[in-house]
């Protein structure tokens, strides 16, 4: 089933996928075991003339056993999930690239801070529904919303974060593969929710340089 996952293109994406596949294997094996036992019981213990059901109220040892085993697996899964969650959502790795994404009914407004690295200055660049970032670099995404709750979803990057009006939410990703990826809204935001989407273009280092030069031609002169 997991082959239906869109191709992964981010650093933490592969860790999410391997946790996904671990849970898939554990639940898959559990399901097969439980169903095999159930079907076996249904066949073995179907009604037959002259056979009386076993008079049995339970078995304390068995009950303790399956309680402890289930609890063990569940706590193990929590312990295994915890570091990845912390890494993705609780930390913000050092980043040189920043993008501000403001969601509004029904588009993503992308703002780049420009060469000065600060928002709200003259050299800011605004573009609707198109995000351009370099490959193999941490990108800090500051998420805002102008009206209702939206959710920025980049399936290939395993990135999802709600945008909440009244807040700036810090989030990040690091793309590992150049390409053009779809960026839909995942939270119901009104009649135009369906079709609210943008594109993320992940450039190779050279392509990204060319994109920067095209958008801020003057900055190159200042730099050199």
């Amino acid at each position, binding site marked *: *089933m*997991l082959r*239906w996952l*869109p191709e992964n293109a981010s650093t*933490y994406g592969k860790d*999410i996928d391997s*946790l996904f596949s671990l*849970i*898939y294997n554990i*639940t898959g094996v559990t*399901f097969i075991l439980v169903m095999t*036992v*159930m079907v076996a019981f*249904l066949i073995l*213990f*179907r*009604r*037959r003339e002259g056979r*009386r*059901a076993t*008079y*049995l*109220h*339970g078995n304390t040892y068995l*009950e303790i056993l399956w309680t402890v085993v289930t609890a063990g697996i*569940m*706590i193990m*899964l*929590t312990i295994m*999930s*915890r570091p990845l*969650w*912390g890494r*993705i*959502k*609780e930390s913000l790795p050092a980043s040189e690239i920043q993008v501000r994404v403001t969601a509004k*009914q029904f588009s993503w407004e992308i703002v780049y801070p420009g060469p000065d690295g600060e928002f709200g200055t003259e050299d800011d660049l605004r573009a609707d529904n198109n995000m351009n970032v370099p490959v193999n670099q941490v990108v800090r995404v500051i998420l805002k919303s102008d009206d*209702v*709750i939206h959710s920025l*979803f980049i*399936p290939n990057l*395993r990135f*999802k*974060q*709600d945008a*909440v*009006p*009244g*807040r700036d939410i810090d989030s990040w990703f690091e793309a590992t593969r150049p390409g053009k990826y*779809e960026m*839909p809204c*995942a*939270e*119901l935001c*009104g*009649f135009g*929710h*369906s*079709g609210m*989407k943008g594109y993320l273009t992940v450039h190779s280092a050279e392509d990204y340089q060319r994109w920067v030069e095209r958008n801020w031609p003057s900055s190159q002169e200042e730099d050199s």
Partner: protein
Amino acid sequence: MGEAVSESAGAMQEARVHHGHLGFWRTYVFSTDHKMIAKQFLFMGLFMMVLGGLMALLMRWQLAWPETPVPGFGWVPEPYMYGGIIPPDFYNMLFTMHATLMIFFVLMPILVGCFGNFLIPLMIGARDMAFPVLNMLSFWAGALAGLVMLAGFAVPGGHAAGGWTAYAPLTANVTYTGVDWGQNLWIISLIILSFSSLMGSINYITTIINMRAPGMTFFRLPLVIWSLFIVAILLLLALPVLTAALAMLFLDRALGTSFFLPSGGGEPLLWQHLFWFFGHPEVYVLILPAMGIGSEILSVFSRKPIFGYRAMVYAMMAIAFLGFIVWGHHMFQSGMNPVLGTSFMLSTMVIAVPSAIKTFNWLGTLWGGSIRFTTPMLHGLAFVSMFVIGGLSGIFMASAPVDIYIHDTYFIVAHIHYVLFGGSLFGLFGAIHYWFPKMFGRMMNETLGKIHFWSTFIAFNGVFFPMHILGVGGMMRRIYNPLQYDFLQTLQPINVFITISAFALGAAQIVLVINFFWSLFAGKRAEANSWQANTLEWSAPSPPPHGNWGEALPIVYRSAYEYSSPEVSEDWLPQDRPLVPKPAATY
């Protein structure tokens, strides 16, 4: 002391037996008889199920063949539909109202309203509920809520279209959706409905505590009564929070109070915290009665005592308690402090433990049984196996990092339907087939029952299993047209397959309707104890008269699950049958 109370309550009820004829209105409409109120809830729920199901089919049409006219729906006026084509805002109304109806007006009225009312007095050995008039009010408040909810389709601006979760600020201001009185009526209807449920739950709790027949100790109660008792407590604690949140949302809309609007100093996430503090226990309100029903059915048709009775009771209590501290798992990606995410992840993982205990105990009940594959039993077995899938798929989103990807995708839609359709609805179908003879005095047809079961079971899996694949593929829930997205193009054949299965699932329900109404009038007359079961309702006539039993109330001597006991030659031993004790030597 408890017994003294139940005896005096019993004596009080004696008087009610001799009421005599009450006339049409008091018997069928404004009835205070718990069995009639149960039937009223049942018919209301079944009617709403037809509406909710049709809405689902309209949605499925749109998802498989987007923006093409739905056959036979050309008559629906604009702006709802355009020559049979579903526009996006009507699509949003459809999924909002499909969920609202199915949760609040189908599963709750039938599982809690109908079976709670019908079974509690009959299974604990009481003549009626503790507060019969309150009981009647509870139904009529529920019916009023249903009318107000349906009226939302007739107002300008259309019905609520913000999802059944009604996330603010989308729902907190008319400008965001264009929906005006539709959303207001949705709020008002749910406030009325929560009063209805509160009246019901107070009644259930009081009745179970005070009116058990002599000898019916708490640990002799059938598990379905335990489940309804725990559900009533859950409702009592969770509904006031929903009511408060709904009132705040209404004030935001009507008076501009800005509880949830950041522009006025409000906080959008507050709505989500309040809603899910109610919403998660609500999920257990819908699944616990099905667990109780499944336990009754599995034990009766395996001819075996329920495996680990006390563990089953404690597991339900644990689920109910944990249900109050897991709501944050709906909000992992909401912007809530991610540190909180870890604690909610732990509590959510832990809730799998009591669920697993119940599943293993059901398997233990089957072990060594003498299993009869009747229609109720098939539904009971389907309940267990589908609940296993729904429970296991829940582990994926319990893991917060995995939830980053699958949150708000069809994986969630698949999960909720395996729990609420695969679990609750199969339990509900099982209950209808199992207690129909007691309710209406006639048996349902077994052949039609089995045709309905197998077609429903196969079509159900054809609809909802592939939704896991859609979710893994990244398809977002609540989108109107998947073809608007490049990355969803390859998933479209799955959407078509699901829609075809959904129509088969809808068609299968016609068999149930035929069987239900045919059996109502022409089914074989039912014996008092139609299934050779132990619980007290089977000691009353089918259907039970006003007051349930004749002059004397049953006296309880043992637990509810003494099947295949060595003490008797039959393989059942009713709770109320006195036995001369055997000499000690036999033990």
